[in-house]
């Protein structure tokens, strides 16, 4: 039962949310590298880390890691706003 619940949370909610943000993060990352990436080193580095975290968390599929990577990118987006 617990495994089934875990499967639903990860596969039905966290993976789609992670993929949704990964789409945005990929475009965001390429845009930053193509424009002012090297002028804001820390932001670019954090964005790159966020992209790697989102990608690897989708492969690893650990609940905590998925939460963390999603939250980290959302924080980066908030900083931008």
């Amino acid at each position: 039962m617990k495994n089934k619940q875990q499967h639903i949370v990860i596969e039905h909610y966290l993976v789609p949310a992670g993929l949704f943000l990964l789409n945005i993060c990929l475009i965001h990352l390429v845009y930053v590298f193509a424009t002012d990436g090297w002028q804001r080193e820390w932001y670019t580095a954090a964005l790159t880390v966020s992209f790697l975290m989102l990608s690897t968390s989708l492969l690893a599929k650990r609940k905590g890691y998925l939460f963390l990577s999603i939250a980290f990118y959302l924080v980066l987006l908030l900083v931008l706003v």
Partner: protein
Amino acid sequence: MSKHAAKADKSKNLFWLLHHWVGLYTGILIGILSLTGALAVFIPEIDSWIVKHHYEATSTAVNGTPRFGRSVHTLTQRFPDYRSLTISLPEAKEQVAKVDLVVGLPGNRPARYDFFIDAGNDRLVGQRDHQNSLANYLRQMHVRLYEGYWGRQLVGIGGLALAIVAITGLIIYGNFMKKQSWPNIRQRVNLRIAMADWHKILGISALAFNLVIALTGAWLGLQPQLMRWFNITTPNSYEAPVVMEPTADRQMAIDWEKALAAANTEFPDLQPRHLLPSTDGSGTILIRGNISGLIYERDINSLVLSKATYAPVFKYDVRTQSFADQFYFIQEALHFGDFGGLMLKLIYALLGLTSGFLSISGFVIYIYRRKKKKQATAATTMKIIVAYTMLVILFLTVIALISLFVGYAQASFLAGILINTLLVALLLYALIKYGMKTGIKRLGRR
């Protein structure tokens, strides 16, 4: 089953039905838009390549400001009654400056030509009919399917449909992933299951991208109607007062180097791309361009100078505008991926093609489901898919050939007939099918 669970299942079933029917009736449109869109993101690059290699028009080394004044003067002497003239400055080394000239033909018909200028030597090095260019074909096919009457609105409806299938797809995704996990594709299964797996995996993987493309596409397509209905005015639509006769305005000599220097002083961040001398008697030069690093529609920043004094008359810097203006101008850039160089365009093209694949894979699933009783095989299904794909490619190729080698008007006329006939046939088919279904149900009840 509890009442709550039954209600949730019923609403998910409704979303599935919406996903199914909207996808089925607009799938072919989404497929065409996906393919043409993947090409349309590269229009500037494709056009530069064609100008350089097909027309053999290049610029010699440009030292400082590009030079084109003498060539433009020659053109205005050759076409003294021109309706409008736009100079596009070269964006890269060896690229030519381009003059987009609209002239009146007998019978008040307009003709539009592109003239190429070597911006190093200020020499005319080539020309073409603007309407019949490949760049124009790619743009018009994606923007309005070459249908001049309401093709743009049809494309907007395609965008709306893509948004609906994306959102409903997300809602029903969980139902189809009860025993499956992303990104696994079941092995050693038939074509239907393999396509269903790819449909789910690719659909959810590119969902955010497709949603952005869909919503911006819906807005861009339905924009003229929506702006009329909701009384929205185009931002940055400045009109300078008329102070002289249009003929006198067209004949005014312009020192383009002075104009560009004035633009640099008045608006240092502006990268001028297009220069438009007025022809309506306002005696002005409109300079449009970009500000580096911003995600907005191309050439949306502008500066209007007086032709006589080169003093600024109007300035539009998108950075200082309201949120509504900025939101308005972000749509096209987001839709065409025109804000992060060639790499971003490549990603846009690849992700954009996913919606085309989704329409094909969705159609395969539909054929299997429909022919279940008739025992559909992979071979017959693939035959149907290949036939539809070939018909779409044939349509795109025939219209392209007519547009390039005969004329835009003829291509648009043919496309209009084909698209509207297909549309009427599709609507009739849907109505007859619906009528038959409800009729049979009523008979069954009796």
